[in-house]
């Protein structure tokens, strides 16, 4: 068992009051202080709007916010799906042969050093202001953690299980499907969680670089007209979106690999 266990995620704790209360207290304190500061200091609300003003403005502009959230969400979902497919594909190719690993790995690492600020406008010049360049940019910048996660996962396969399958007459691909891939699944979900946070950031930035709709371009337009209250409202929506998608990976994990979290609860062997 020890060789298949997966060290870098901890068993899920029950979400009791003790888990979320400290975060809520800190957040509430910060918001109250912020509110007090903006009302007492008389600072120009265009420089720093108060939390209450942000919420009021956000609520008033809710349909515009929502209309710009949809394209961002779409781009993220599609780009992220592409990243998963590509990430998995690369992991299989790299796992299959040492030569391919040596050939491809440096390119993949290199792809992660491309500065987004420089390539986002280029990709938009090539593919236009539509959804395609965003999907490509998201996939380009978030496939890597997924590839790495799969590769780590394959390597964690219990050698006893592989040997056993070999004695049963299983060949490489069969062993891959029966043992290596399932072993890698918990690692994949860890990679997924890293990739999902990248995806949103890249989506926003890609829109910033040129788009007709989406939270990124929305934020840019509002910044230009000093509607900082709505900028903050859009940031809150972005953050909420990230948290929801992040939580969704846990839900997906529970459905897809039900044996995993439960098998790691502390009172078990």
């Amino acid at each position, binding site marked *: 068992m020890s060789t*298949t266990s997966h060290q870098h995620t901890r068993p899920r704790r029950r979400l009791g009051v003790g888990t979320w209360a400290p975060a809520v207290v800190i957040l509430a304190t910060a918001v109250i202080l912020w509110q007090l500061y903006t009302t007492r200091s008389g600072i120009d609300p265009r420089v720093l709007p108060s939390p209450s003003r942000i919420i009021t403005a956000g609520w008033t502009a809710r349909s515009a916010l929502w209309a710009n959230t949809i394209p961002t969400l779409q781009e993220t979902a599609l780009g992220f799906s592409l990243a998963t497919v590509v990430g998995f594909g690369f992991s299989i190719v790299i796992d299959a042969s040492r030569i391919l690993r040596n050939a491809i790995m440096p390119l993949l690492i290199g792809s992660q050093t491309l500065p987004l600020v420089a390539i986002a406008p280029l990709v938009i010049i090539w593919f236009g202001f539509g959804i395609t360049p965003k999907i490509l940019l998201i996939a380009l910048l978030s496939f890597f953690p997924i590839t790495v996660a799969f590769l780590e996962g394959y390597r964690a396969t219990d050698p006893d299980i592989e040997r056993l399958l070999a*004695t*049963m*007459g299983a060949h490489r691909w069969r062993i891959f499907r029966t043992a290596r891939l399932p072993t890698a*699944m918990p690692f994949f979900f860890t990679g997924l969680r890293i990739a999902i946070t990248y995806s949103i950031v890249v989506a926003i930035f890609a829109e910033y670089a040129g788009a007709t709709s989406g939270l990124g371009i929305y934020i840019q337009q509002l910044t230009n007209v000093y509607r900082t209250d709505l900028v903050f409202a859009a940031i809150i929506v972005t953050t909420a979106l990230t948290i929801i998608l992040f939580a969704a990976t846990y839900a997906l994990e529970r459905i897809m690999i039900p044996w995993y979290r439960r*098998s790691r609860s502390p009172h078990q062997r």
Partner: protein
Amino acid sequence: MTDVDGSVSAPKLCVAALTHSYDSLSVLEEVSLTLHQGELVALVGPSGCGKSTMFSILTGTTTPSSGHIELDGAPIARHTAAFAYMPQSDALLPWRRVIDNVTLGLEMQGVRRREARARVMPLLATFGLDGFARAYPFQLSGGMRQRAALLRTVVQERSIMLLDEPFGALDALSRIEMQTWLEDLWNRHSWSTILITHDIREAVFLADRIYVLSPRPARVTAEVRVPLPRPRSLQTMSHPDFVGIEAQLRDALASSGAL
């Protein structure tokens, strides 16, 4: 070896002068042994002496430096389907339910899922896994995990079973429980089996014949017959003959430098 009816039969498996080394590390040295139909032979030796290498040679995952292996009088090919192997760790797949773990070997043979399950279902009770078909391995006790791994080995219906320290990971009490259970089951089925162990009592209790191996590189230093009647029980363990064979084995291990 003489069969029950007194006739001399050819061995089922014949290993002759098997020698193996990993690079410059010599692991097996001229190991010869035989296994007859329905016999349980134990290999006893110190940890790390090369017993497991022996099994990986038999199952075809390691090619020996020299020596030959004959099955039913014919040399065996690489990756023969003659052996069902149970590794030291139970090697249950954590993501598969018990039923899908025990049918793993059949699945690899290409047996349809429905048929594989039908073959295994009636055996679950015998292996103490009744009602646990849908459980995941982490929900089983250590003994149950070992029994599931054994069931996975048995249902492959290979001509010879290779058990590599099947109870090594269990606590003393579960181990004795498993040994008596196994003795009873094997006694009824007469499965040809090679058992690797470093537990002398386990070897005497279960085996028909025992080969004592030296520390690495492994050589056969003694061959001991266990003429104790079957079925054997806990009382057998305190029988003077049992104690005598146990002492004989301990001496053999000591003189080969293992103790």
